[in-house]
């Protein structure tokens, strides 16, 4: 074999390797995009979960005070409307007694409003995570390093000058595309690797905080609400049944209302727990990317990213049930 043939063979192999590298890396980075896209989509449901912590607090004190005012309709209306009032100064609370801790209904509402402040802080933390995941996904998207259309446009323009032959332009366009794709793919992966490497611990910290906030704190609030609600309906039905001339339809109505609210709370608790599992998937998925950061185009990463994307996708249905 002469020197020229060897050189030609070497160049063909190199070209083949470049083609394989460029084409395969596109597909595999696309799977990273799927993972981050699903994770970010779920995080967009976060405001509903976080905002309901205040809602749960309000629903709980309403049970306390409705019982205290002995179901008087005019006072019940005042209790229901309180959370809608921005400025509580001068809100009429005559006839609404303090609770057994000595707290007025206004004090309860003000305490609940502290959860609104926490909600705002939590929203900022969630936004940081969503933005990061989305941007990571955008950088992993194939269309960013696909220059085919732009090169076609450039090729058409060059052809119309009439200086070069079309076949030469097409050949040059193809080669330019390869070089450009290879160079930018390499650069893109370097950027992805660097971000994943630097932020793995931070993604874990933030995801754990959001997981605890929803799957532990919010779930506890819902359980506190459930405890208050169960006590409320037990008393309501017991007191009603102690009266003369009990209407069984009314009892059934109370029980149905209680059941419906129990189901609502159960769905919310399941959604919050699903959110916690999703955050676990975000932590584990990101950490796997970190572990395989040197080979983001490997088969392991492709399968793993798809698996985490699927896990997260499967949990989305649980949200839809609770927050339609």
């Amino acid at each position, binding site marked *: 074999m002469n020197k020229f043939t060897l050189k030609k063979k070497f160049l063909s192999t190199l070209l083949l390797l470049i083609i394989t590298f460029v084409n395969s890396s596109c597909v595999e980075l696309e799977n990273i995009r799927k993972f981050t896209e699903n994770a970010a989509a779920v995080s967009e449901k976060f405001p509903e979960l976080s905002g309901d*912590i205040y809602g749960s*607090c309000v629903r*709980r004190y309403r049970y306390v005070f409705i019982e205290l005012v002995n179901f008087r309709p005019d006072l019940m209306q005042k209790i229901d409307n309180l959370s809608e009032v921005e400025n509580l100064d001068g809100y009429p609370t005559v006839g609404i007694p303090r*609770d*057994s*801790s000595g*707290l007025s209904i206004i004090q309860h509402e003000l*305490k609940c409003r*502290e*959860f609104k402040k*926490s909600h705002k*802080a*939590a929203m*900022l*933390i969630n936004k*940081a*995570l969503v*933005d*990061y995941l989305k*941007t990571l996904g955008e*950088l992993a998207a194939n269309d*960013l*390093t696909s*220059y085919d259309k*732009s*090169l076609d*446009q*450039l090729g*058409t*323009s*060059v052809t*119309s*000058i009439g200086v070069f032959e079309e076949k030469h332009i097409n050949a040059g366009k193809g080669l330019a595309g390869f070089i450009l794709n290879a160079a*930018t793919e390499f*650069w*893109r992966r370097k*950027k992805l690797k660097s*971000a994943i490497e*630097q*932020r793995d611990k*931070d*993604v874990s*910290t*933030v995801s754990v*905080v959001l997981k*605890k*906030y929803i799957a*532990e*704190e919010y779930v*506890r*609030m819902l*359980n*506190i609400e459930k*405890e*208050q609600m*169960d*006590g409320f309906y*037990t*008393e309501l039905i*017991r007191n009603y049944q102690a009266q003369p001339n009990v209407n069984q339809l009314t009892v059934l109505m109370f029980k149905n209302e209680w059941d419906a609210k129990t189901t609502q709370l159960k769905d919310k608790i399941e959604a919050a727990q699903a959110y916690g599992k999703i955050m676990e998937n975000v932590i584990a998925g990101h950490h796997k990317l970190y572990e395989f950061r040197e080979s983001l185009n490997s088969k392991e990463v492709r399968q793993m990213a798809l698996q985490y994307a699927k896990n997260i996708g499967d949990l989305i249905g649980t949200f839809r049930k609770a927050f339609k």
Partner: protein
Amino acid sequence: MAQTELTQAQAQQLADEYLELAKAIRKYRDENFNTLSEEERKRLRNFINQMLNEATDFTQRSIVLLLSSAETKEAVGNIVKTTKNLKAAIKTLEGINKILKVAAAAIDLAIAVASGNPVSIVKAIEEAISTANS
């Protein structure tokens, strides 16, 4: 003795314990309802509400400590910084596409000028400006 600050884990534990206490009192009250005096029933009901108030308060404290910890703030700051860098990288990649498009528009403009056709020149200028601004 020096007073120590409540940690997030402690606040969380207290909230859980107050909730469990409320549940236990309600269970006892329900199971012994017929043997309890009216006064005892009322007192136990009040205890339950107080326990649930405490559980809510400690949940609030736990949330504040969780969201405002120095570790959380630092992690959020780092993530925001990296996101900015990633966005800049995306802009760079988008820029390459734009350069290719602008180059094509510039060639079309040169051809139009060479042809001397005013209609083609105006159209090519418009396209070149629109590509450069996109």
